[in-house]
């Protein structure tokens, strides 16, 4: 039950002055789509909710620059999913953002919130892993940049220190000719949490990147397998060895959504599919949007 107070600060300084008082009993709310559901479900009971939506220093836009793209702390998932540049150059991220929850959820939920929530099944995480995203963190003592792969440390845990928050996420521009895709498998097609999610990117040079969600305590970038998969693009046997290496890099569990065995098999199936679609997108000029 709602046993919390709510603060709606207008500036970052106010946020930083609020947080120390409550420490771990404070929760940051960007879109609120996870925080409030968790409170409802009794999974957490913060004493203070700090709304970020009115903080003037935080941004809700998507800035496209020569070196990449910057998502603000308040950039909503539906804007990520529909942005033409994201759909074109960061297709895996657009795929993922467009499959989180429902439209109602995507209209409120933010990309940074999806990361900050640190769910092992967070859909946008595998794409951000393959784009080598950087999480820009701000706190009372200043700013720091954290590579996405070291940002999430365990289910629900991030490398954010107390009092820090995500200010933005930066994705460097993939080289020209790259193609990427995110494939999600869930128990149904509409609004559902991922049973397994797989993101892949094929670079112009024929290099492959692969990252998986919902098959370990944190998302998994299958770095060891990527070389092998790259070699395998013209060699079916080598490719299958690479796929096996991807599966070996994951640590799925059995839960009510699926068994470990099925998840392992799906890591392979979805990785194959993500690579297939990435290749298609790479080769297609004037790409067909998903």
């Amino acid at each position, binding site marked *: 039950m709602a046993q919390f107070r709510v603060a709606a600060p207008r500036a970052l300084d106010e946020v930083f002055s609020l947080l120390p008082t409550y420490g771990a009993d404070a929760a940051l709310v960007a879109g609120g789509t996870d925080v409030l559901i968790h409170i409802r479900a009794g999974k957490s009971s913060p004493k203070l909710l700090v709304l970020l939506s009115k903080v003037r220093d935080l941004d809700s836009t998507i800035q496209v620059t020569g070196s990449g793209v910057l998502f603000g702390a308040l950039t909503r998932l539906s804007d990520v999913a529909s942005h033409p540049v994201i759909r074109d150059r960061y297709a895996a991220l657009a795929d993922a953002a467009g499959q989180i929850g429902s439209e109602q*959820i995507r209209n409120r939920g933010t990309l940074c919130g999806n990361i900050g929530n640190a769910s092992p099944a967070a859909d946008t995480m595998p794409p951000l892993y393959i784009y080598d995203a950087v999480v820009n963190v701000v706190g009372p003592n200043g700013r720091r940049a954290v590579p996405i792969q070291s940002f999430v440390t365990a289910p629900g845990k991030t490398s954010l220190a107390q009092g820090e928050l995500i200010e933005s996420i930066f994705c460097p521009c993939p080289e020209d000719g790259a193609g990427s895709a995110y494939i999600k498998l869930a128990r149904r097609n509409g609004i559902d949490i991922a049973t397994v999610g797989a993101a892949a990117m094929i670079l112009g040079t024929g290099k492959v990147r692969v990252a998986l969600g919902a098959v370990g305590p944190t998302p998994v970038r299958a770095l060891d397998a990527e070389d092998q998969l790259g070699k395998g693009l013209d060699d079916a046997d080598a490719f299958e060895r690479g796929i096996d290496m991807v599966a070996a890099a994951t640590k799925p569990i059995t839960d009510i959504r699926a068994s470990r065995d099925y998840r392992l098999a799906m890591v392979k199936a979805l990785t194959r599919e993500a690579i297939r679609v990435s290749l298609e997108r790479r080769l297609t000029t004037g790409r067909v949007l998903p």
Partner: protein
Amino acid sequence: MMSDTIELQFTLNGLPKTIAVRSSAMLAEVLRDDLGLLGTKISCNEGECGACTVLIDGRTANSCIVLAAEVDGCEVLTIEGLAAGGELHPIQTAFIEEGAVHCGYCTPGMILSTKALLDRNHDPDSAEVRKALEGNLCRCTGYNRILKAVSRAAGKLRAPSPVAGE
């Protein structure tokens, strides 16, 4: 800046509204309990079913998991605000005509999600309609008549009107 009650100023169904509410109140609670707008339905109360869908600045949201404090300065549309001057909106008419209304519990949310869709896409194909309504559960109709209603509504809204432009 932080207190147990909070004063909200927002536009509700086209009219300015100022109201003091508990700061922890959800938008759905404020609409239903404080403002008596019971057309916004409470079902799952955890953002899954879409029965409590309202439009905030033209976009759909599950009002059961939006803090009322969030809509300060926003425009909120509930089902009660759709039939302007008592005349049904074409989406409402289409839902009746296609038999898309059964028990009626999902209906307000379903209609508002349809409105958001048709406001941004005048001629959605079947896949786009399904995608736009994935967060609105219905257990009565099997959705088929709802999909037909959306496409009928789109047709009505596209029909040539004497006013040029939009």
